[in-house]
């Protein structure tokens, strides 16, 4: 009967099981000995090993200044959400925890993180040092102070292959959807004449629920659709979301500028690989540069995700992505943790993070630093962050909404790949089911 029990334990005893898995972390220090902080950082470089190579020298500066040691544990994104959950349910976690920007409100509502009230905000250098949009995306306007502060930001933007563009006589990347479709159709070609298209104008990971949730958030905003209404009630099946979903799936089935095979691409790196191999000419991604560099690939340039012209909703191209971090409420080293957060959000560390990880600074002054090279890519990304990015909804159910709308969109893309263009009613049906589940989540 062991197997029966295993199933029961799988879902039912989630909290207990995750509690056990998380019990191995935590701060360590005697009252008299030197303080050692534990920091769960998230994977930002091409590999976890590379992350450690980059972060250790940055953190060494903090240890040199304060005598406080920092033990860094890099977490892969895939299982990180459940790991955070385990830490929260068990109370056994690191002193400082990095989290994805889209989880901000859901995790803040657990009460497992110390709010940055006025005193704590002053201790880390004040709220004015942050880029306002970055701080807002971390819940900066929350009553009683945010539970997280922005460590590094990113945006999802267009990446295109200038060599392919030049060969086709296209001078500039498109800025609106009409131009985007025209360019993508021009670049979707059978280059070797075997009757099979081997260069697609656009590539997209249609099997990645996470990417789909982020894209439908942004394009949904362009169609005036939002995940939650003004009262905070879920509206995953709003008209604007349905229209945006239809527009996106039509790129594959009606416009035929992306391969139906992309519905089996479950991560951005699958499409990045196609981009490197010349199979796709344009893609949307947040910082695929490390992947390009690892492959020795140089034919890439940044652009803007297209917007509707004329506009229907807001010209939002992306959510404000990246990493926020907070102090775990169970920490025994609050002051040391605050010192560490101050250090990591000051100009020096922010510049280093940008130089090493291409993470957009969240410190306002860092943008004026001479050490931040104002490359064309940097200027585009900074412009998107400042003008065309918005905070992923700060609602208690955002974490669940992200999962559910992503799963629903994955299903819509799969349906389109299997049976052709999807009607708005069919798409609405799938999104309605996701919305029902979100409401039932309580």
């Amino acid at each position, binding site marked *: 009967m062991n197997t029966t029990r295993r*199933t029961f*334990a799988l*879902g039912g005893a989630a909290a207990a099981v995750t509690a056990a898995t998380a019990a191995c972390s935590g701060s360590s220090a005697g009252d008299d000995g030197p303080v050692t902080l534990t920091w769960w950082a998230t994977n930002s470089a091409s590999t976890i090993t590379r992350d450690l190579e980059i972060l250790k020298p940055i953190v060494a500066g903090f240890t040199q200044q304060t005598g406080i040691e920092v033990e860094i544990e890099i977490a892969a994104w895939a299982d990180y959400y*459940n790991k955070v959950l385990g830490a929260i349910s068990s109370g056994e976690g690191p002193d400082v925890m990095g989290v994805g920007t889209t989880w901000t409100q859901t995790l803040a509502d657990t009460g497992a993180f110390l709010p940055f009230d006025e005193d704590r905000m002053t201790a880390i250098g004040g709220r004015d040092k942050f880029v306002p949009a970055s701080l807002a995306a971390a819940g900066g306007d929350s009553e009683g102070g945010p539970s997280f502060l922005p460590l590094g930001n990113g945006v999802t933007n267009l990446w295109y292959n200038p060599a392919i563009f030049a060969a086709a006589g296209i001078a500039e990347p498109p800025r609106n959807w009409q131009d985007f479709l025209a360019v993508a159709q021009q670049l979707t070609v059978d280059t070797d004449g075997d009757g099979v298209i081997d260069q697609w104008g656009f590539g997209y990971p249609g099997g990645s629920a996470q990417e789909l949730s982020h894209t439908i958030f942004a394009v949904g905003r362009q169609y005036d659709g939002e995940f939650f209404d003004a009262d905070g009630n879920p509206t995953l099946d709003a008209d604007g979301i349905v229209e945006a979903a239809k527009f996106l799936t039509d790129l594959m089935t009606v416009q035929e500028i992306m*391969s139906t*095979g992309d519905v*089996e691409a479950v991560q951005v790196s699958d499409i990045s690989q196609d981009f490197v191999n010349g199979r796709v000419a344009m893609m949307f991604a947040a910082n695929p540069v490390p992947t390009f560099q690892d492959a020795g690939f140089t034919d890439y340039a940044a652009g803007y995700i297209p917007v509707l012209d004329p506009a229907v909703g807001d010209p939002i191209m992306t959510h404000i992505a990246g990493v926020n971090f907070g102090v775990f409420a169970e920490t025994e080293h609050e002051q040391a943790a605050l010192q560490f957060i101050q250090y990591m959000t000051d100009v020096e560390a922010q510049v280093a993070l940008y130089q090493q990880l291409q993470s957009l600074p969240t410190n306002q002054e860092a943008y004026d630093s001479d050490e931040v090279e104002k490359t064309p890519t940097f200027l585009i990304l900074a412009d998107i962050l400042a003008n065309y990015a918005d905070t992923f909804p700060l609602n208690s159910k955002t974490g669940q909404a992200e999962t559910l709308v992503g799963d629903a969109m994955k299903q819509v893309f*799969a349906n389109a790949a299997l049976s052709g263009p999807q009607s708005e009613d069919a798409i609405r049906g799938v999104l309605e089911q996701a919305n029902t589940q979100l409401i039932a989540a309580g």
Partner: protein
Amino acid sequence: MTQLVDRTDRERRRREPPVIRRRPRNVLPYVLVLPAMIAELLIHIIPMLLGLYIAFLQLNQLSIRRWVNAPFVGFDNFVNGLNPSTAIGSQFFGTLGRTAVYTVIVLALSWVMGTAAAYFLNTNFRGRATLRTLYLLPYALPVFVSAIAFAFMFNQRDGVVNKLLVDDLHLLGDRPFWLIGGNAFIVLVLASVWTAWPFAFLLQLAALQTIPDEVYEASALDGAGRWRQFVAITLPMIRSSNVVMLLLMFLSTFNMFTVPYVLFGPSGPPEAQLVSPLIYQFSFGTWNFGLGGAVSAMLLVLLFAVSLVYIRLVLPKEGNGRA
């Protein structure tokens, strides 16, 4: 004189109440099972009881930190998850039915393959040991490795299956999708059978080796062919091992999580959705741990009932082990 003393001594002993000598209790068996009992408690029993408790709570992100004090909601989670007229309930029952069909198919195919392979490898021939080892290879591989290999093989664009069917043999015009839509169920079954059938093979082989050769020789003298021998001798004589094996395989197949999770990711195609990944989705996808707990509890009851009936009806009674 000596005899007198002896007699007196015997009489005295007879008069005295007999001394009951207690055997020192042998604690060794208890000591030996103690680690297993502790492990069983920690790994299965306590999480199971906690899971049952959680099924009666409204446990989500707001209450997860102090989950022991989460609001008690009685049977709300059971009503929500098991009412077929709701979206969640209909999804659960649809998935339950699909899982039952999947279990029957996987069990049937695994049993046939395992039994056939064991039957033919139970005879002496050159290369038998090599084949036996080869057949056990899928069992030696971690399940997730096999599932990853299947995901690669059935990839629509670059998979070897479509290359074979479309490019090499020209049996199909378009490259079909195998990991989404209805075909996903077929791939799920194939990958599951691949990982499950060596277990059937192993147990059947062990059972077959307990059948004396003389029985086959006697039946051969009576003119029985191999099929007749298989039906009239082999199957009845391995019945006791068969019923245990089928029960074990039923439970592990019904609860299958690894293969669909690795093949399709956290949210698989609806056509290949099984119960265990659905519970995972309820619990971790939507942070609705109460609902996940309630559905798990119902599944436990269901599987326990099925197992109980099976054991009562089919499992050989003591002393009746060999038919």
